[in-house]
């Protein structure tokens, strides 16, 4: 025995079940704190990314979008959708009073492509008029999108030769975008000329489906609108819905606020769940330490008889509790990582909300925070119990257990 501080190590070794039970509580704490914070943070980051991507005041889609994927679905869940409004409708929308800028997008669903395990959403946009996609793309790609070039989302596999085939024709991957945590990550972007070419090829292969009665050159799947200063977005939206038939205009903030509300609800639920687990675990931990301390009254008294001060007893208890809590909290963290890593994709789908996992640095900080909180919970509860026991006179402690 080197010093009195060897005692905690020996206590743990000689009482492995007691130590394991305490460690399990610390593990539960760190698991709940880390997993909860990770999920809430991922959702918040996802929403921020989503807000940044949309960039429009109003989004207009054809009525035929109902029953297929809506713009919302495509952005959030990567659900593929092909629906079109005519060029005439696009012009009507553009001429609505209060509309400052208009840009159209053309959605096309790929046949199975070499890049991807499932069909991907191809989004054609007009770089000349765009105020939504380009600002985001420019974060990863500063060049000009030439005809035949495509830009792929973060989740689309980049082939070694940089070429992806759609509907029998090869396209050069000009850039790959950063991760957004939304369905956009599995989409492919290109300019209007290229998407029109793809659509023509698709029409030939699919015997005209799904473009029957559609003029590919002028048609659009979605129209994004910027409203002029001084105009009410709701009023412009209503104006479009009244005057342009077969389309559905929706203020972008309504889409976002729906997601925001959903996110806020889920965040609150997760936060409450984490708080409940934390409180429960701390209460159980406090009760466990109180029971353990009661069981160890005699041990404390004997140490006092030998000349241990209250401070020394605290140090022994604190070190023992810190060791056990640290091991438990680390195990809880590893479990949380082990559970969350494979479940991230399932979470994205099941929550139906933008989900963007934090950077590695933030994950490390989150882990350190969860570790620290679990450690502190263990330390405080054990020291409170030790304080309660050692507050009394040593002789009385000895007598109670004699």
């Amino acid at each position, binding site marked *: 025995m080197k010093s009195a501080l060897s005692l905690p190590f020996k206590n743990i070794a000689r009482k492995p079940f007691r130590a394991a039970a305490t460690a399990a509580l610390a593990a539960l704490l760190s698991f709940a704190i880390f997993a909860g914070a990770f999920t809430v943070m991922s959702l918040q980051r996802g929403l921020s990314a989503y807000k940044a991507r949309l960039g429009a005041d109003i989004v207009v889609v054809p009525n035929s979008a109902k029953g297929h994927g809506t713009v919302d679905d495509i952005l959030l869940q990567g659900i593929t959708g092909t629906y079109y409004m005519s060029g005439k409708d696009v012009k009507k929308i553009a001429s609505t009073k209060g509309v400052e800028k208009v840009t159209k997008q053309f959605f096309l669903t790929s046949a199975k492509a070499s890049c991807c395990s499932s069909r991907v959403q191809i989004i054609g946009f007009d770089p000349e008029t765009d105020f939504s996609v380009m600002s985001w793309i420019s974060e990863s790609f500063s060049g000009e999108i030439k005809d035949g070039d495509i830009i792929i989302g973060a989740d689309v596999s980049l082939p070694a030769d940089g070429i992806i085939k759609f509907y029998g024709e090869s396209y050069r991957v000009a850039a790959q975008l950063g991760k957004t945590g939304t369905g956009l990550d599995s989409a492919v972007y290109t300019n209007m000329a290229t998407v029109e070419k793809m659509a023509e090829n698709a029409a030939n292969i699919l015997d005209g489906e799904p473009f029957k009665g559609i003029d590919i050159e002028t048609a659009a799947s979605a129209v994004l609108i910027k409203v002029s200063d001084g105009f009410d977005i709701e009023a412009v939206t209503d104006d479009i819905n009244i005057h342009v038939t077969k389309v559905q205009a929706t203020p972008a903030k309504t889409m976002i606020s729906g997601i925001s509300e959903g996110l806020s609800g889920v965040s609150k639920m997760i936060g409450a769940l984490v708080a409940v687990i934390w409180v429960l675990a701390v209460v159980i931990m406090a009760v466990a330490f109180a029971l353990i301390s009661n069981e160890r009254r005699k041990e404390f*008294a004997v*140490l006092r008889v030998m000349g241990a*001060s209250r401070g*020394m007893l605290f140090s022994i208890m604190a070190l023992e509790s810190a060791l056990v809590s640290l091991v438990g909290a680390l195990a809880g963290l590893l479990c949380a990582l082990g559970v969350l890593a494979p479940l991230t994709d399932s979470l994205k789908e099941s929550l139906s909300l933008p989900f963007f996992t934090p950077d590695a640095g933030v994950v490390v900080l989150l882990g350190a925070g969860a570790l620290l909180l679990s450690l502190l919970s263990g330390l405080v509860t054990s020291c409170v119990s030790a304080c309660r026991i050692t507050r009394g*006179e040593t002789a009385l402690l000895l007598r109670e257990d004699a």
Partner: protein
Amino acid sequence: MKLTAESISRIFFRNGKNTNFFSAVEETDFSLEPGKLTEIVGRSGSGKTTLSNMLAGLLAPTSGRVLLDGRDIYALSDPERSKLRNEHIGVVPQGQTGLQSLTVLENVLMPAAMYGSAASKEKRAHELLSEMEIDDLCDVYSNELSGGELRRMAIARALINDPKVIIADEPTSDLDDDTTQKVLKLFRRLADDGAAVLIVTHEREALRYADLVYKMDKGVLSLQKNI
């Protein structure tokens, strides 16, 4: 070192028929002289253990002072009093007091490990364990010992820092006659070597070894024998 108690008393609160407190030790003066073996005898519940605990710095008196070479030990802070007890007062408490996570040797070395190096005391620990005839059990955990072996381990532990004051509460309970003799002889020798020794006991045999014998009766201490 001389341990002196000046007018110490101890009252405990408890609900009784007529009063809600009782006096475990009535106001008394007492001293433990270097080189002398003092015994306190008396019936169970007479206040012997309360008095010895007050002398050992484990129970604050309701009134009075306990002085070790003139220093009031209850005027010291907890860390100071604890260190003083560790260095100068060897206490053998009543009952079984083994630390179950430690072996016999580690139990004996624990007081030395608290404020210094236990390694330097290993030889002394083996000497004491040999004297207590349990050196062959030095690697055994204390929860595997018999009651008598535990008492002997507690005695060795109290002596590891070579204290100048020794306070032993019923050190020979659970011991056979032969071992009782050996333990009493050890305490006698320690007193002869200059330590101030107090034994609280029911053991009649112990009277043979004592210089001073006090009797405790209902909290009142009286001198029975002064050699």
